[in-house]
């Protein structure tokens, strides 16, 4: 197994980066499963709205505190 030194960025992987991979990529199962994140694009869009509202909130709070 090739070992590549993790970059410093890896230590603080953002939720966005994880979602982009873990929720949006990988083998998708269908068939015998009881349930799964059925419509990943919708989840992604939902998260997008959620994250951007959080980002906006963070920014507003930062500006308010400044």
């Amino acid at each position, binding site marked *: 197994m090739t070992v*590549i030194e993790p970059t410093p*960025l890896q230590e603080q992987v953002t939720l966005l980066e994880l979602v982009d991979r*873990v929720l949006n990529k*990988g*083998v998708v199962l269908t068939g015998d*499963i009881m349930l*799964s994140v059925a419509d990943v694009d919708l989840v992604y869009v939902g998260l997008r709205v959620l994250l951007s509202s959080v980002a906006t909130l963070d920014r507003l709070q930062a500006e308010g505190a400044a």
Partner: protein
Amino acid sequence: MIAAPGRTAWYVYGVVDAFASLPPGRLRLVEEGVLAAVVGAVPLSEFGEEALAERLNDRRWLEAHVREHEDVLQRLAAGSTVVPFRFGAIFRELDDVVAMLHDRCAELTAALARVRGRVEMGVKGWADREQVAASLGDAQPEAAGGRAYLERRLSEQQRAQQVIALLGDIAGDAHARLLRHADEGVANRPQPHELTGRDETMVLNGAYLVGDGAELAAEVAALQADYGSRGVSFETTGPWPPHNFVEPREGA
């Protein structure tokens, strides 16, 4: 469906070779032929169909569990070849997991062979649009007189189009050059400003399947040297479990 309290289901993180060893902890292998699924028990109170739909809107819950999914895959990848599954593959019974392995044996075996001995590296290209515009040279000379406003607007629009065209060319060149040092690569949709929270514009969101990342790293450094002064910088992430290279290929 209605989940009885205390009931559990099986969460599948990914698939490994049947003889793979697991890191110590709560995970277990479900073996079928040459394949094994890496599973963990999860409470239906959180991972039942309706519960899960609600939890996905809870940013803290989602972050904790998406991180856990990735952590498990990273630990597995340290010792085994792993085909990562997407977040949220949940089975009622272990027999259902066995049936999945049986039904998808050919596809999953091919996916294991495809990523064996390789890792996924991410490369992002970021553009400082003002610096990119400045690198195009002087803007049109300021027009004087009554038409000045319209001509300035036209000039601005032309400049913006030139910047977009240049960024497309740079991203295309970068992806092509990185592909030469990878077994496979894919240029994913760049993440938008609202999500990245950065001033720069993401122009490349590439993923590359590599055995040894040294060549790719050298090419990233070369790209940085070539385009950094024009306002486009590059950064590498990873190694990642090969999320981008385990779905069946088009036409395969």
